[in-house]
C-alpha cells in the first residue's frame, strides 16, 4: 500500500522523509563508525585539538607509527592490560546466565501460561514490580550478606544474581510465548498418556525454540551489557569486559593511554554488531511480542 501511495506523495514530503531518515541513520550509526575508525589511530589523532580531519587521515598516527592505521590500542588493551581475561570472563558469564535463565524461565513461563489460577496472575504482577527494581538497589542489598558468606567477588555469584534479576523479564516473555502455543497440544499429549512433564518434554520442547531463541537473545544482552552487578560483585581479578573498561578509565586517562579504552570499547561492541546482524528478525519480534500482546 505504501509503495502505491508513494507516487502520490508530494515531492516536498518525500524530500522531508528521506532527509529525516538519512539524518537519523547518521545519528544512529556515525558514532560507532567514528569510534571504530578512530580506534586504529593514536590519541593525538582521535582527540585532536587542531582538526578532526586528523582523525580521518591519521596525521599524527603516520608521524608516530609510520602508517595510517595502528593496532597499538588493541595490543595495549588485550595484551598489556589483560583485556583477554575480561573477555573470557564475559563469555563464561553470558553463556551461563543465558542457559540458566532459559532453563528456569521456560519451566516457569510454561507453568504460568498453563495455570490460569489467581496466584499465577499475582506471580506475574510481582514479576512486573521486580522487573522495575533498579539493579543497583538490589546490589546494595547483596553486598553485606555476600561479604559475610564469603561468596563475594567470584563469577558464580554474579551469574546467579544476573539469572535472578533476569527472571522477571524471562518469565513474562516466555509466558506470552507459551500462550501462543495451543493448549490442545499438551493436553492431547496428556490424554495420549504423558505426564505433564513428559508432555512438556516430548511435545512442547520441540516447538518452543523460536521463542526460546528470542528470549535467549535478551538474556544474553542483559548479562553482556550489565554494569551495576558485575562492577560491584566481582573482584578486580574476575572482572568482565564492561567493569574492566570502566576501571581502565580511572587509570588510563592519566597515563595518556585512553586509546586502550577506545580499543576495548570497540572490541566489546563487535559481538553486539554481529548479534544484530544475524538475529535482527528475532530481536524485532521479541521487542514487539510483549507490546502487541500487552
Amino acid at each position: 500500500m505504501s509503495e502505491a501511495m508513494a507516487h502520490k506523495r508530494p515531492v516536498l514530503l518525500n524530500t522531508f522523509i528521506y532527509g529525516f531518515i538519512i539524518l537519523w541513520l547518521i545519528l544512529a550509526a556515525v558514532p560507532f563508525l567514528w569510534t571504530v575508525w578512530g580506534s586504529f589511530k593514536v590519541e593525538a589523532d582521535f582527540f585532536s585539538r587542531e582538526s578532526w580531519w586528523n582523525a580521518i587521515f591519521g596525521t599524527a598516527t603516520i608521524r608516530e607509527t609510520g602508517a595510517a592505521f595502528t593496532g597499538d590500542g588493541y595490543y595495549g588493551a588485550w595484551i598489556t592490560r589483560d583485556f583477554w581475561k575480561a573477555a573470557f570472563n564475559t563469555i563464561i558469564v553470558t553463556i551461563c546466565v543465558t542457559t540458566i535463565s532459559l532453563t528456569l524461565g521456560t519451566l516457569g513461563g510454561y507453568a504460568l501460561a498453563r495455570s490460569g489460577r489467581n496466584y499465577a496472575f499475582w506471580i506475574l504482577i510481582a514479576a512486573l514490580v521486580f522487573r522495575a527494581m533498579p539493579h543497583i538497589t538490589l546490589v546494595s542489598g547483596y553486598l553485606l550478606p555476600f561479604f559475610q558468606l564469603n561468596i563475594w567477588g567470584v563469577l558464580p555469584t554474579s551469574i546467579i544474581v544476573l539469572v535472578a534479576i533476569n527472571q522477571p523479564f524471562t518469565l513474562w516473555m516466555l509466558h506470552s510465548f507459551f500462550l501462543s502455543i495451543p493448549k490442545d497440544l499438551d493436553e492431547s499429549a496428556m490424554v495420549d498418556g504423558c505426564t505433564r512433564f513428559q508432555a512438556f518434554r516430548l511435545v512442547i520442547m520441540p516447538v518452543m525454540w523460536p521463542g526460546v531463541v528470542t528470549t535467549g537473545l535478551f538474556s544474553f544482552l542483559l548479562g553482556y551489557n550489565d554494569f551495576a552487578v558485575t562492577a560491584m560483585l566481582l573482584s578486580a581479578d574476575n572482572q568482565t569486559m564492561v567493569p574492566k573498561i570502566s576501571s581502565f578509565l580511572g587509570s588510563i586517562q592519566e597515563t595518556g593511554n585512553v586509546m586502550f579504552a577506545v580499543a576495548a570499547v570497540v572490541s566489546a561492541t563487535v559481538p553486539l554488531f554481529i548479534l544484530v546482524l544475524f538475529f535482527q528478525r528475532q530481536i524485532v519480534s521479541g521487542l514487539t511480542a510483549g507490546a502487541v500482546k500487552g
Partner: protein
Amino acid sequence: MPNKTFFAFILPSLIAMVLFIALPIVSVVVQSLYVSHEQILVEVENCQPFGGCSTELRVDSAATAALRDEQPLGRFNGLGTYVNRAHLATTELGVILSSERSFGEKWGQILNLPFYKALIFTLVYCFFVTPLAMALGFTIALAVNALPKVTKGPIIFFSLLPMIITPLIGSLILYWMLSPNGILGATIQHIFNDPTLSLRASPALTWGALLTYGVWTNAPFSFVVFYAGLQTVPGDTLESAMIDGASRWERIRYVIIPHLAPLATFVALVQLMDNFRVFEPIVGFSAEANATSLSWLIYNDLTGDSQQFGSAGATSVLTILGVVILLSPVLVRTWREFKHKAV
C-alpha cells in the same frame, strides 16, 4: 494445572527471585536502619622522659575491627539515616524553605542537597527522555513505513544499534566525541566561540548531553514497536478514511494514533521503568559533578573507601518507593480489573 505440578515447574524460578530480588529488598530496608560503628577510642597516657605525661585519645583499631566483625550491620540508627543531610535532609530543607530568600535561590540551595540533586535529575531524565524518545521513534516509524520495502532491513539494522549497545559503552562513545578534543566537543566550542566550554565546566552542556544520550538510546525501542504496530493498522479503516476525505495528517491523527495508543502506554511504562534507573551514562560521561541520579548515589556510597551500607540502603529504599509510585497507576488498574473479573 494442579497446584503441585505448577509449583514443581515454577519453583526454581521462584526461589531465584525470592532469594535474589525479594530478600535483598528486605536486606536493604534493614541496612538502612543501621549505621556503621564509630571507631573505638581509648585514652592513652603518653609519658616522655622529660616532658611529663599527657593523655591522648587514640583509635583502638583492633577493638574497632573486632566490633565490626561481631556486628557487621553496625549500630541501630532508626530513621536517622533517612533524615540526615545526605538523604531527605529534613532540617536543612526546613531552614531553606522558611528563609526569606527568593525562589531561585531556594532552588539553588535545594539542588546542593545530594539526594534532591539526584532525584531532580532522575525525574527530569525520566519525563524528558521518555516522551521525546517516543515522539522520535514514532516519527522514524512513520517515515520508514513510507519507504520502499528493500530499504527497511538496513535501516532497522542501524537503528537497533543505539538501543542494543551496552549503556556504559554507548555513553563512553558519545562522551569521547563530546570531550573538548573530540569531534563534537571541539565543534561546539567553535560554534559558541568559547574555548573553555566543556562537559566538565558546563552543567547545562552535561545535562544536554545526558538527555541527548537518553533519547538516542531509547528512540529505537519506540521505533521498532510503533513500526510493528503500523503494520497492523487496519487497511480498511485507512481506506475508508481516505474515501471520507481525510488528509494525510488527519489519517495519522484519527486512525493511526488511536490504533497505536495501547502500544504507546506499554512503551511509556517500560521506558519510564528503565529511565528511572539511569546510572551508566553518569559514570560514562563522568558527570557526577553536574548531574547525579538515585542509582548513582547508591553506587557512590558502595564504592567509596568506606562502604556506607546504611546510606546506600536508605537511598535504595527511597528509590524503591519511587518505583512503586511510578508503577502505582498500573498496579491500581490491574487490581481493579482483577476485582472486576472476580465479581
